[in-house]
Each structure stands twice: as C-alpha cells, then as structure tokens.
C-alpha cells in the first residue's frame, strides 16, 4: 500500500499521566504491524516526525484544564475525521476533576508558593464538553486490547465491539468468586466493564476506575456497602476518584456525607 493511502493516525495529550498513550506503546506484539497499517502522523511521545493534519483518526488523552487547551482541542477536532477519547481523563475529567468539588484557588495555594504563576481553569472537563466525540474508551488506564479493537474498527469503518455492561459480567465470565459475598465491598456492579475484572481476581473490591456503566443503580449498591459496614465517608471517597465528575458517580458521592 502506498504511503498516501494509509490512514493517518494522531495521538494528542491534554492533562493526564501519559498512561493511556503509553498503552499504545505497550502493544509490544502489535506495534510494528500497526505502524505498517497506519501512518503514525502525529505522536510526539514516540516520534520527532510530526506531520500536519488532516488526520483520519485522532486519539485524545487527558482532560481540559487550561484556557490554552480549550482552544487546542477545537483545532484538533477540526483536523480530525474521527476523534476518540482514550481513558478516564479525556472521557470523564480524570482524578484532576476533584477540583470541581473544591475551590481551585485553595488547591493552587496548597501546592505552589507563587500562585500568580499558575494559569488554570476552575474545573477539569472531559473532551465531550468541548467538541463532538465519535467514541469514548473508558478506563484508568484503558485496556490495550480494547484500544487495538477501537483503532481496527475505525479503520474498517465499523462500530467498535466494546461492551457497556458491568464488571460483574467479567467476573462471571472469568469464574472469579464474587468478593461481595465474601464481605468485601466492590464497585463492580455499577462499573463499566473493560478491565477484565482485575481487582476481584486479586481479592479486592473494584474501585471504579472504568467509570459508571450504562444505567448504574448506585443507590442499591450503596445500601449493600452499608450492610457490609462501609461508612458514608467510605462511599463518598470511593465514588469520588478517577471518574468523580462522571454524572452518576458525582451524584452518588454527593448523596453521602463525610
């Protein structure tokens, strides 16, 4: 296939830890084949060869936390035929969205001696709050097999085969004994599948890093947690983490006091 005809891939970073774009480099067995199937036209973390747009597929990591990034994401969207968000920051605002529940000026003063040097927005928002998004891949971090599926689907012009059910289904499929019945509080019943139900296989409860599933019943799960001895503060903390600003989790955390 000639250089011109290969689809052009771009990877962009906003406020994030780099882990989701690292997932692409962690595809050790697929990376060279992928680089043959697509033209990696913009991936600054991996390559100094940066080419101008337009791009067929843009993968966007990170959330919007600065005025500069608010403008930058508009430019990314204009240059991209398809735009896919990768990970909890880009999809839900990430752990840095904890500022949304506090006064950001208190946060700045807690970390920096000279607050006047710091330019930041009062909120951390997902990419979809700023531009249309063609697909959102959940996870903190994303699952690299799902990433390959999403890239393949967009290249083939089909819908990605990514299930939106809860982590519970993954435990059943793995044959992992439910940790809730062993007395360990778990967010699996309300959390979006995709990780492969790792935490229960390590004898701990899911902590919700893939964010809310479709139509989660957080109130019913909270009652189960209370029955297992969890305090309102425990509930507030667990819903207020990497997907704190995702609406069902934000509402569930507001429902429980410190």
């Amino acid at each position, binding site marked *: 296939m000639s250089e011109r005809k290969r689809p052009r891939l771009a990877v962009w*970073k906003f*406020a994030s830890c780099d882990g989701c774009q690292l997932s692409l480099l*962690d595809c050790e067995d697929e990376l*060279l084949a992928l*680089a043959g199937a697509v033209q990696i036209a913009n991936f600054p973390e991996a390559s100094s060869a940066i080419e101008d747009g337009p791009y067929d597929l843009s993968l966007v990591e990170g959330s919007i936390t600065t005025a500069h990034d608010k403008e930058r994401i508009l430019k990314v969207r204009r240059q991209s035929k398809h735009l896919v968000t990768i990970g909890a920051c880009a999809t839900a605002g990430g752990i840095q969205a904890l500022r949304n529940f506090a006064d950001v000026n208190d*946060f700045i003063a807690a970390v920096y001696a000279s607050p006047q040097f710091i330019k930041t927005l009062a909120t951390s928002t997902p990419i979809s709050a700023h531009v249309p998004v063609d697909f959102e891949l959940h996870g903190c971090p994303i699952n690299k097999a799902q990433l390959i599926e999403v890239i393949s689907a967009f290249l083939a012009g089909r819908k990605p085969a990514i299930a939106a059910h809860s982590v519970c289904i993954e435990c059943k499929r793995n044959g992992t004994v439910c940790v809730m019945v062993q007395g360990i509080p778990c967010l699996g019943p309300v959390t979006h599948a995709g990780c492969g139900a790792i*935490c229960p296989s390590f004898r701990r409860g899911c902590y919700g890093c893939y964010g809310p599933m479709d139509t989660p019943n957080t109130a019913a799960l909270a009652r189960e947690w209370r029955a297992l001895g969890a305090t309102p503060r425990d509930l507030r903390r667990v819903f207020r983490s990497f997907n704190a600003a995702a609406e069902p989790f934000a509402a569930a955390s507001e429902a429980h006091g410190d």
Partner: protein
Amino acid sequence: MATKTIRVDYLTRIEGEGGLDLRISDGRVTSAQLSIFEPPRFFEAFLRGRGYVETPDLVARICGICPIAYQMSAVHAIEHAFGVTVDGQLRALRRLIYCGEWIESHALHVVMLHAPDFLGFPDAIQMAREHGDMVRSGLALKKAGNELMRVLGGREIHPVNVKAGGFYRVPSRAELAPVAESLTRAHELAVSLVRWVAAFPFPHFERDYEFVALRHPDEYPFNEGRLVSNRDIDIDIADYETQFEERHVAHSTALHSLLKRRGAYLVGPLARYALNFDRLPPSVQALARESGLGPSCRNPFQSIVVRALEIVYACEEALKLIAAYQPPALAALPVRPRAATGFGCTEAPRGMCWHRYEFDAEGTIHAARIVPPTSQNQPSIEADLAAVATSALDQPDEFIRDRCEQTIRNHDPCISCSAHFLKLSLHRT
C-alpha cells in the same frame, strides 16, 4: 545587534511536554530555561482528606510510566507513620515488582525514545527498518518487564495489588515460573542491548554533578536506604527537608528542587550507578567495564549505557528473587492507623521519589508532599543545556537545537510527573 530565534514547537520522545528557551548574547549563552507548562493536577491538594487505604491507588496516577515508584514511596511512608515494618518475602516481592517497572521503563527509553538520537532516526519505527532486531528485542524486554508487573500487580499501568502492609494477594511459585522463563531470555537481550548502545558515538562532554541517590548496606537500591551524595550528604530520608528545598519559578509548573547549600543536583541512573557501583553484582560490574565505563560516569549522553546496565541488573535481581521465593503466610501485615507523620523515598527509574504524609488518628491525610525525580533534575538539565549550547555556539542553529533536545532526553524527563508543551526558542543577539 542581530537577534536570531529558532523555535521547535514540541520536544518529542519524552513523556509529557515542555519548552526550552535559549538566549545567546555576544557569543555567550546568557540563559537556558526548561519551561514546563504541564497543567497542574494538584495531587498534594486533593490528597488532603483522603484515606491511607486509597493513597497508593491515587498517587499511582501521577505517572503512567512509573506508577510503582509512587505506590512504593507512599506505602513506605504510610508504614513508617503507623510503625509497620514489611520484611521477608513481602519485601522481596516489592523489589520484584520494582524490577518490572525498571525493565519496562528503561527499555522504553533506551530503545524507543533515546537510541534514535544516536542513529539519526525520528523514531524507533523508522529505526526498525535498519535495526529491526534491536527494536524487536527492545520490545521483547519491555514486554518482559510488563509481564512481571502484570503477574504481580494485575496490570502494567496503575497496578492494583500494592497496599500498605504488603499486597492484596501474593503469587504462587507456579505463577512466577513463566515469568522467570521470559526474564532469562530478557537477560540475554539486555546484555546485547548494553553492547549495542555502548558502541554509539558519544559527544565528549562531562559535568561535575552532585549525584544524590539512596544507598543501602547490601543492595543496589530500590525501596530503602540513606540519602547520600558524592559530596557530604548522608542523611536519613526523614531529614530530606533539612538539606533540600523546592522553589517555584515562573517558567515551570514543576517546582525546582535544590540543595539548600549548593543548588543543582542530579538523581537517576547516573547518580545511582556512581553512588552504588560497589553494590552491583560482579557480572554487571564486568559488563560496565567492558562497555568502557568506570565506577562513575559523568557524561550524560552515556546515561543510555547505564540504563541498559540497570536493565541487566533488574533481570538478574528478579531471577534471584523468584528462585528464592516462598509464598508468605499473609499477603499483608495488619496496619492500624495513628496520628503521625511518615516519610517514604524509593528509586523510581528516573531517580529518587520522596513523599511525606501527615495522618490523623483515623489515617486521613492532613498534609502531603511529593517530590518527583524530574523536578529535582530540572536545574541540572538547565545547567547541561547551557554547557552543551556553549560548546556548540559555532554550529548551525539546527545542530544546536538537535543537540539540546538530546541533552534533555539524556535524563529521560517524565514531564507528566511535572510538565507539558516543550518548545525551543533560541534568541541570539
């Protein structure tokens, strides 16, 4: 007086983004600033009010490339505060998962990000067309490190198994057996990698760094030791703040760490190696000598060789730990919170990563302070840049730009731990 500006919009092949501003006046470099604009994420602020149980999962998210470093410094600080000592096989498992992180992180930097500089390629994928075997063996090494992270931690990025007191679940010997097979092969690949990178063309360049790293009585350091330097630092990690300070400068959202009495210092592979050469096994020492290195290396361009040597060390150490492994009876020691302050300091792939937490009686954080390796190295990177640019003043701007980018990559900065958006402006007057 002529003014000249060269601009690069992104520094590439580093983790995160930042900028570089060089000013040259009357044939002299007057200022070299590494600008870090990474949007702040305020970890130290939102950690206040959070519990010790969730702390390892929260701080992992500072960095997707070295989450174990943040988890380990945090659990050591928690255990220090609550009076718990993790030893025996649980301690060995912590060293083992840290080996995995060093292998995957160093392999990524050596082969995918740094090697292309020496061979004149924009990236490892282009490099693979002429050096396919080495790129493939770099990927295989990275995969072996990630396999160790996955078996012990559940996944490569933001592992889920580390907790205060130990782990949620410990592996069986049978689970570790296939990892040992991968590591045996990885060890061979790592030795070849050392020989490959040792033959790269290195600029003649040395700096008189003050190296700072952990030093342990018997081991090459991962989790424990005293903080020492090649000058006069030899302190308990709890005394870090008596000797070091952070300054907030306008051109960076990463705080600059400095020695109060002397200023810039260097952490990372060059520092660990120089301060702990005698703790490396004879096999690794011999390989270092064969590669043309003495017991200390002051040429930052040769850090790629030291990183490759540390991959060899991490493979050997991991194999030794797996061979001696017996599953402990308890996956974690009991941890009971109390009102106290705890300190943790461990050796991230990029250098020591220091944490302090103040807890109340229930184990809720009242104050947190986290000092990542890259903010410690920022002043030394700027001093390197000034020295490298000075030695290249008679060269074309393009050459200076490339050499400066390489100078930054020498230290494998993890700007996501601290930085965003690198652009190079070169002002000549």
